């Protein structure tokens, strides 16, 4: 159950990033898994240089924010007017470039970051012993999601982003520079994945391919929750986390099969996802 909560919280955060990018810009970022991976590696480098886990988290998140903004400026923005398929192809190509760049620089073997001293050891939960760091992860991710929620629902920027999800053209017509907003959203969305990447690094070791599996799980989360829906991403993430961990306890071989079965069920019963919007199809 707790494993499911940890995984679910992480998936919720990563999926929120993917879903706000898609919702606002209309671009499905296939390099989102690579962002997760880059966050982990950037954090690893920062940790190696300073030995501070807090610095590692900050570095991981900021580095991916910068990567996201640059990627949007240089490439993605030329694809807004091109078909969805082209956007998918180019982000897919970029994800390969990122993964192979990291492989080139760090090799394929797995790297680990130890959990910070304040998160090491195990905690007595009354009925079981549990690694403290995993509890910390739930806390950190909850704070990050709350921050994302505040940005989206309590600030001017968030209001524009949510308006943009409904109708980007209209927002543009109102005299708001949508393209600047797009850049910020892409950066924030990427950062959510990068942040999750470094937070998760002490739990699961780092390899260049770590993003691929996460990306596929994120897709399932988003399909279950409804594309473009922030609450849907959180709900979908939590549900998926539980499915994965509960099935793993019984038979790990069936964990993913169950996850995809759940997705199929949602698709059959509610094709738009649990909290999907009617617009943007």
């Amino acid at each position, binding site marked *: 159950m707790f494993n499911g909560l940890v995984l679910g919280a992480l998936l919720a955060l990563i999926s929120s990033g993917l879903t706000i990018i*898609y919702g606002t810009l209309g671009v*499905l970022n296939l390099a989102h898994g690579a962002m997760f991976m880059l966050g982990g590696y950037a954090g690893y480098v920062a940790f190696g240089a300073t030995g501070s886990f807090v610095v590692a988290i900050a570095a991981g998140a900021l580095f991916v924010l910068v990567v996201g903004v640059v990627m949007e400026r240089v*490439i993605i923005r*030329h694809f807004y007017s*091109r078909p*969805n*398929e*082209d956007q*998918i*192809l*180019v982000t*897919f*190509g*970029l994800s*390969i*470039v990122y993964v*192979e*760049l990291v*492989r*080139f620089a760090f090799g*394929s073997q797995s790297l680990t970051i130890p959990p910070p001293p304040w998160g090491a050891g195990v905690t007595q939960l009354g009925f079981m012993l549990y690694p403290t760091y995993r509890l910390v992860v739930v806390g950190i991710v909850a704070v990050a999601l709350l921050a994302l929620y505040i940005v989206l629902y309590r600030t001017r920027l968030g209001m524009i982003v949510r308006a943009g999800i409904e109708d980007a053209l209209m927002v543009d017509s109102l005299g708001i520079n949508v393209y600047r907003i797009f850049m910020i959203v892409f950066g924030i969305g990427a950062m959510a994945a990068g942040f999750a990447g470094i937070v998760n690094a002490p739990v699961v070791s780092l390899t260049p391919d770590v993003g*691929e599996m996460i*990306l*596929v799980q994120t*897709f*399932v989360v*988003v*399909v279950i929750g409804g*594309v473009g829906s922030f609450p849907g991403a959180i709900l979908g993430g939590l549900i998926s986390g539980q499915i994965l961990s509960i099935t793993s306890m019984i038979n*790990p*071989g*069936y*964990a*993913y*099969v169950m*996850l*995809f079965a759940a*997705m*199929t069920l949602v*698709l*059959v019963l509610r*094709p738009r996802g649990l909290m999907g919007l009617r617009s943007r*199809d």
Partner: protein
Amino acid sequence: MSTPPRSSAGPRRYPFLVEGLTALGLIAGPFVLPLLSFAPNTVNQILIWGLFGLGFDILFGFTGLLSFGQSAFFGTGGFIAAYLLTQNILTSVPLALLIGTVGAMVTGVIVGLIALRRTGIYFAMITVAIAEMFYFLENSPLSAWTGGENGIPGVPTPIIVLPGFTWKVGTGWAMYNFLAICLFVGVVVALRIVRSPVGKILSAIRDNPLRAEALGHSVAAYKLTAFVIAAGYAGLAGGLLGVLQGFMPPDAFSFDTSGQLVMQTAIGGVGTLFGPLLGATVWLFLRDFLQSTLNLGSAWKLVLGLVFVLLVCFLRRGLIGGLVDLYKLACHRAEVEAEAPEETPMPIVTAAEPMPPKHRDGDFEAGVILKATGLTKRYGGLLANSNIDFTVKVGELRGIIGPNGAGKSTFFKMLTCEVPPSSGTIVFEDKDITGKGVTEVCQLGLTKSYQVNQLFTRLTVRENLTIAALAELRGKFRLDLFRNPAKIKGLSEQVNHTLDLVSLTARADTTVSALAYGEKRRLEIGLALATSPSLLLLDEPLAGMSPSERVATVKLLKSIAKGRTMIVIDHDMDSLFELVEWITVLQEGKVLTEGTPDQIKNDPVVKEAYLGGLHE
């Protein structure tokens, strides 16, 4: 005007040109490719990827469905064939390959039914997820059959036994011969499919699925067809991979397999059938070259990734598309300039006699053709149409007017069954069509031309009309995958006739995106006409036309109204009063009044509706 590049609807000048060139290329392969330092094993892999890509290109390039889950079918076909052969259930390799292909197609039906519930990026995401599920299924729950992470070793090479002759296929170039034959058959089949009526409809679905549906084609069924065809090609290619390597690797199911296929297709050129083959050649050549000659080791994939990103950014249609553009630039520069978009003026008098509506079963001769009772449409709190009673008699030419927001277009959408009414019934030719789909209603003989053009923009004018006519001639779904459209009785007559009717004969082989606005408007009407409807709805046919075009279009509408019932919405009162016999006025979702043009012209209630009343 220059000769059209490829008039695909008309008879082709060299009927088997592409097939012949493919055969020549495949025969020349073993002589030419070694000179370019290709190893036989690499070439054999290229052939397998090319075959795999044929199906994928039909799915992505021709139908517009980008799947990232083709590995599921590649693996399924491969493992079924490998299992049958290694467990000595079968000894005939071709038979095992066939069963693997069929297995992949059956899987394709099941997966397609789930994935095709959504389109666009959703479809891409779902295919990724489903393919990944297959990977996990192979790896653990089914590992007793598939060998899990070890795959299936010991797949035998084929022995072909024909009467009086036995061919024991070896490895290397001997295997090439076997694979080349498979690829050649694959190419011939794919070409037939692409040129068949089904192929035409698939490209229509890629361009505008909504209109394809409204013209009476069962889009869902055709999409599934394309999906299953792609699965079949993938299954065969997967089986051949096992035969080539003597080992069925679990990697066949990996996301990388799907990704590589997508990238190779995009590199080579989407929608060309040969793009994947060219893409695979480039891909595998670069891989070997970077790895062995430049000693880049694992960085080869980084270089290929960069090349791919650059290609997607700058060469949208892949290498083949780029070569075609280059060729056109070199040879046809002068001709292209001469062919600057010149709009054909619309002749005032249409020479062609309109085609009578097709008589469908249960001939309907006289009386009331359409009767709507109590039609209501609610959008949340907004009442777009409330309680409309509306009756049209056979042969009538009816006009509908009303201020903006009166609910005219909503009313039309309900009549054609694009949106279901909140309450009320619609009876067309004595059949209750309430709650039916737009496809079915079009097949019954009721269709509409749209207020905003809904055309197949990447196809030519002739192809557009062909698609509309095919719906009427073939019904909403038919699996004539190998039929030559030129042999469909009445098709070319119907298309040529409609071309003539809307005065687009001179522009028949022009791509729609190159047409002028007025021409597009005429084609929009032509599309609806080519389905030979007995009741034709026209939603603002005159919108955006110049005064002279309006006069000509009114003439056209008058001529096609002979022997046909029509309902016309328009804001151009003068034209409408001249055109129709009876007018219904809608206001705020209700029928305000009805009458002859003269009665409506002088009705104070109508004037008030348009100019505003005094009592508010």
